[in-house]
């Protein structure tokens, strides 16, 4: 890693449990162990697990909030304009009963009701959506964790905040949420390169195809890591070859690797051969991004 480069790598997969966190934590550990300044951002805000593997002293914890409208019954004339403006059914309006109420869980913080109200009857309050926590591993390595409160309508505002905190970092690695919906897009749209982690099974291949289709629409460069190689069949490899997609690395299925992962330990720390592979992978990605 050269001093002046700024690189953001997202580690993602359509299917859950393929090994995203295994890859992101090991890449992070390898980079910091080689003395490179690096930040790992846990963007899987519904189930953040990075801190089970790499953690440190908490530097700060920020809360992430959204605005929620508050309707003042003294000023409200029950005209219903805010109800009409709300596109999320977050306002219940019963004109005959002079009843109006905000359903906080449905509000997306768009501000339309505020614009709608001509009687200054709507103000806003803050509601917590989650937290962004910064952890200090050493002078050149930091972990930023996005954690959404259970059941919030979308983890995206929390993910965006965490990614923003890492915007000026030299090397940032994003541990993406599973799937290909909004939270995944919010993570990969800010990355220069995406590593997709899959496994050589029909489920793995099906979800890999969906992720690849989405990344191609976004014009993002990407490559694939096959985890638990040796299980399943050759279909994933055949498909990668047919579509000329780079196979970056294979991690074999091995009970010892499974055990190391299960206890929150790091493959790169315990097996120098993997450390070397992760280091080469980082260099290769840097080279391809800068080209």
């Amino acid at each position: 890693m050269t001093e002046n480069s700024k690189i953001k790598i997202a580690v993602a997969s359509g299917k859950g449990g393929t090994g995203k966190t295994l890859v992101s934590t090991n890449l992070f550990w390898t980079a910091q162990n080689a003395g490179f300044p690096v930040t790992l951002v846990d963007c899987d805000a519904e189930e953040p697990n990075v801190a089970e593997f790499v953690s440190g002293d908490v530097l700060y914890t920020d809360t992430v909030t959204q605005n929620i409208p508050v309707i003042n019954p003294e000023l409200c004339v029950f005209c219903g304009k805010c109800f009409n403006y709300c596109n999320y059914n977050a306002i219940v309006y019963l004109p005959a009963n002079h009843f109006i109420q905000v359903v906080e869980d449905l509000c997306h913080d768009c501000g339309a009701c505020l614009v709608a109200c001509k009687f200054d009857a709507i103000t806003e309050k803050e509601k917590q959506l989650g937290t962004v926590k910064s952890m200090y591993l050493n002078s050149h390595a930091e972990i930023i964790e996005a954690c959404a409160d259970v059941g919030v309508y979308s983890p995206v505002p929390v993910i965006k905040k965490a990614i923003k905190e890492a915007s000026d970092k030299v090397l940032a690695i994003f541990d993406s949420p599973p799937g290909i919906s909004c939270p995944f897009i919010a993570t990969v749209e800010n990355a220069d390169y995406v590593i997709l982690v899959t496994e050589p099974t029909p489920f793995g291949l099906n979800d890999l195809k969906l992720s690849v289709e989405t990344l191609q629409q976004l014009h993002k460069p990407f490559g694939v890591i096959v985890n638990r190689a040796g299980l399943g069949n050759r279909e994933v490899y055949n498909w990668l070859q047919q579509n000329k997609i780079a196979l970056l690395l294979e991690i074999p299925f091995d009970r010892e690797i499974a055990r190391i992962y299960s206890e929150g330990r790091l493959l790169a720390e315990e097996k120098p051969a993997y450390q070397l592979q992760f280091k080469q992978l980082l260099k290769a990605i840097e080279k391809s991004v800068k080209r």
Partner: protein
Amino acid sequence: MNEIVILSGKGGTGKTSLSAAFATLNNNTIVADCDVDAANLHLILNPVNYFERNFTTGHKAVIEYTTCTNCGLCVDYCRFDAISLQNGKVTISEVSCDGCKLCSRICPSHSIQMIPSDKSRWYAGNYRNGKMVHARLAPGEENSGKLVNVVRENARKTAQETGWDTVIIDGPPGTGCPVISSVTGTNKAIIVTEPTNSGFHDMKRVLEITANFKVKSYVVINKYDLNEAITSKIESWCEENNIPVAGKIQFDEQIVEAMINCQSITEWKPESETSKEITSIYNAIFNDQYSTAYRITSQ
């Protein structure tokens, strides 16, 4: 009606493989695949769809440049940072637009239209043991739980029409809205976990949700032999918290073999240890007639 949801928190613990086995143990079963973001159950159950519908997840703002004056008012009003002025031209990021409609309402020249995002779909079909309702969320859409609700409603409707009373729900990973939509109104929840620190941690987060909804919950430890020490920790924790562990399934490559052959493990190797254990879990949970009250308390 007996609605049973299978969840995990962490992905890849084996929700879908277990759902597939449960779905093929008895006839007259209705299955709802609520993991609409990365649906896989259809790969094993291979339903023949008799019904297909588009689903509108929301709207996206689109600018009519022939009338747009590039005044930039919409840029100021948008709270999703989806609109920006690029070289003096108003530009909307489709990815960031939340579909709130505010820009189209305040535009002085009425140059913003809202176009429905209707690329998501849901389906109903027949599979070898019954009927299946499933869906496909289009890439980049908000997984708000609305499509999950559609799948749930139609699975219920199918149950009423057929008179079959078991609905098996393959749930999504995580702890967000789609999970809440999958849990609401169910009778029982099965949390599939694995003996990893992450699996254990995420299981506890999902149990908070099922406890909030007063849904009776059971834990199944999959691949338990990959780390027996953590398996014991999970078992002790469940015992302390009065959550029944309905069974433990060993790591078994035959589950992957079954998947490759488009079968569930109980179809592929019915006499295997794994299949016997899964059948015993099924019987324990599906025949447990609320003999105990809701025992789980909020953590």
